[in-house]
């Protein structure tokens, strides 16, 4: 079979998957269903990456976006108070504005695609990219590689700090677990007084 035709077939398959599921993300009124449809969008994008010969980026897409970020989104939905029963819909005014911005965005992308000089290099079989990436990371780009871990630590500490204050305020607000505790966490003794107070 012609490799061009096969690749084109897969390209259209993944494109249909991305566009269709992205439409469902917007159109579903139940936000949990939107999150589930997002899975297919992200997976289709991973398929496009692989078709472009970027195998490492494709696997990263599956690992981080599907395995991590999507789970985070679902968690966020479930943490939000009663967000699952909220009917999501837009008013007519936002519909008009959305249509205008969609048309403008499409026009910009269309002209960018038409005006870009596309160079063709002919058909070349894609080679695995993980090994060259690893070699470059550990030799040429060693300092950025180590700085990535610093960035990750900063992100982790910042996120934990922000959420910790959320947890504390949520606990202070809710009457059931209100114990007047501090940031360092409840010891069982402190929480036992909380239970006794509740029993009164």
């Amino acid at each position, binding site marked *: 079979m012609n490799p061009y035709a096969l690749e084109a077939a897969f390209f259209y398959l993944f494109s249909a998957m991305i566009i269709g599921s992205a439409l469902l993300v917007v159109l579903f009124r139940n936000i949990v269903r939107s999150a589930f449809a997002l899975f297919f969008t992200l997976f289709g994008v991973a398929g496009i990456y692989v078709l472009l010969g970027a195998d490492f980026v494709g696997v990263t897409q599956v690992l981080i976006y599907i395995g991590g970020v999507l789970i*985070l989104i679902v*968690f966020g939905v*479930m943490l939000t108070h009663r967000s699952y029963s909220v009917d999501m819909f837009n008013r007519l005014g936002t519909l008009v504005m959305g249509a205008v911005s969609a048309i403008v965005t499409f026009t910009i992308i269309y002209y960018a695609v038409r005006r870009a000089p596309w160079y063709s290099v002919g058909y070349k079989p894609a080679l695995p990219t993980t090994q060259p990436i690893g070699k470059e990371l550990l030799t040429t780009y060693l300092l950025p590689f180590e700085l990535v*871990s610093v960035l990750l630590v900063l992100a982790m500490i910042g996120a934990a700090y922000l959420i910790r204050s959320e947890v504390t305020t949520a606990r202070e607000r809710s009457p059931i677990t209100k114990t007047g505790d501090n940031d360092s966490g409840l010891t069982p003794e402190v*929480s036992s007084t909380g239970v006794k107070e509740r029993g009164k």
Partner: protein
Amino acid sequence: MMMINFSSAFIFIVVGVVFVAVTLLIARLVRPAEPNVVKMSNYECGEDPIGYSWITFNIRFYIIALIFVIFDVEVVFLFPWAVVFKSIGWIAFWDVLIFIVILLFGFAYVWNMGDLDWIKDLGNLKESEDKQ
């Protein structure tokens, strides 16, 4: 060669999806449709379900999920390292050791600040069990 490997993964996914879909379709064709109240209720390990199953989660799950995403990204950086480890040698080992030790500082921080503790809930649970 690379595309052949990915296409075998793709075939694996397609077979998995088709397998489940066909099984459910056959079950739908064969089974009798007699819904009643007990049958339509949620299954909770044989217990009678109380309330709505879509409860709001404890926000502490979110901290755990965020820390998981951070270490997910770390694992992605370890993949290319593992592929070239043999050809580069021991210097690669020390490079990645520094990478991981820096991340362990963040882990030590969240551990030390009690973000990973579940004892808060455990204490409440124990007390309410004693009362019963």
